């Protein structure tokens, strides 16, 4: 038994040391919600200060484990084969609290409010003057996958589980409802014949 203060990054994120990048990302997002000040009832267990500290640890753990080089270094350290690790500095968050209203959507899409096709996602991204590289960095979606998504290139799109995760992350950066985006997008590419499980 260890308190969260003594937990390693995997324990903090409550994932297995063999967890995939996708599993780590999902765990990170859920923990962020769990320990946010708006998390219902949690104040019965933790003080605001403790929640802040837990969140900071969650962020730090994610910065290390979501970067393959840092994660590798960290794994070596856990095995005692290395004594120090680099903790990447927090990236300036570009997606914080963005929410795109219907009026902005119409402006971005020339009078429409959807559907969330690859092309429309690109239009919204450009409307927000976000570079593809910037989005790739923020969402951890590879640059190639991002292009495939925007081009709706069904032959190079990733498998469905990953695709959903990517669409959700992309939608969030753009300030869109992730479920709506996933629904629209999957409906379109299914019609085009995408069928990767």
């Amino acid at each position, binding site marked *: *038994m260890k308190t969260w203060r003594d937990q390693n990054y995997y324990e903090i994120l409550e994932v297995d040391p063999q967890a995939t990048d996708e599993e780590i990302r999902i765990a990170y997002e859920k923990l962020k919600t769990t320990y946010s000040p708006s998390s219902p009832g*949690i104040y019965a267990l933790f003080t605001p200060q403790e929640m802040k500290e837990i969140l900071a640890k969650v962020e730090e753990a994610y910065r290390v484990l979501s970067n393959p080089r840092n994660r590798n270094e960290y794994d070596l350290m856990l095995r005692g084969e290395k004594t120090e690790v680099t903790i990447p500095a927090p990236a300036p968050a570009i997606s914080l609290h963005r929410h795109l209203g219907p009026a902005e959507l119409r402006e971005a899409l020339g009078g429409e409010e959807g559907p969330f096709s690859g092309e429309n996602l690109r239009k919204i991204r450009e409307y927000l003057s976000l570079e593809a590289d910037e989005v790739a960095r923020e969402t951890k979606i590879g640059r190639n996958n991002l292009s495939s998504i925007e081009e709706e290139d069904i032959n190079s799109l990733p498998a469905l589980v990953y695709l959903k995760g990517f669409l959700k992350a992309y939608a969030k950066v753009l300030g869109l409802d992730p479920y709506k985006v996933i629904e629209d997008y999957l409906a379109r590419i299914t019609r085009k014949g995408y069928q990767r499980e």
Partner: protein
Amino acid sequence: MYGEKREKNIWAIGGGKGGIGKSFVVANLGIALCERGKEVILVDADLGGANLHTLLGITYPTITLDDFIRKEVRNIEDVLVETEVPHLKLISGSLDILTMSNPKYTQKQRVIRHIYSLDADYIIIDLGAGSSYHVLDFFLVSERGIFLITPEPTSLENAYRFLKGVFFRKLRNLTSQYEVKKIIELAMDRGNPEGIKTPFDLLERVEGIDREMGALLKEEIRRFRPQLIVNQVRNRAEAEIGFFVKSACRKYFGIELSYLGYIFYDHNVYLSIQKGRPLLLNHPTSDAARCIRDITSKLINGGELSWSLR
């Protein structure tokens, strides 16, 4: 009757807050177990607010736990009533609010002892609201303590308090050492003068007093696995609250909680309660009924939900 011993499972359902559907879940879990060919006894231990019988369509129970507590009948089997579901029996709760909402310690022990002697595959105890000692003790003597929440902040707040109560009560019951007991009682109040802020601080302190006791408590905490059901879930985000509670329990108490599943908010539940007929009979194919069957199978097989990739 006592000839062959069968494996018996005693479950208790609590949750801190009132009106979150404990009795509804107990009744329908019982029916779901009967659908699988099990013999089930439901016990309404909501002393002071009993209404499990109503949910099963019994308006005036002829005999209740009262009669047993007052020793008008000798054996708890004598207060068993049949329900419209074959193999599902009920022990109705006390309707006598004044005398029974706070039973004496010896009365409670007698009830617990007799519940253990009941002959059935599954015994499910419906606990009342609140975190009083008798609720906590019933929760702790069951083999599976299940706690129920709804996604409302008020329910979560009560659930965390309930868990805290259960946790400290469990530790306290494990020791007879005065000094350790005292320190556990102190720890329940966060502003205690000893500066014990978390269960981890407490364990450290107990280890300082008595190493062996510290190790024993740690082992019991490791084995303690309360179960969670989220009721009245309207969307995926609300279903995910179960995982939040799971994480908070890990990080705060160091306990592993099993998240059994969620039950969809379903208008059919309201309709069935209005009609006085359990959901699984009245709307057997409704969304909520399906959820209850899923949870039943997880309870029987020891499974839980895992964070889904999506």
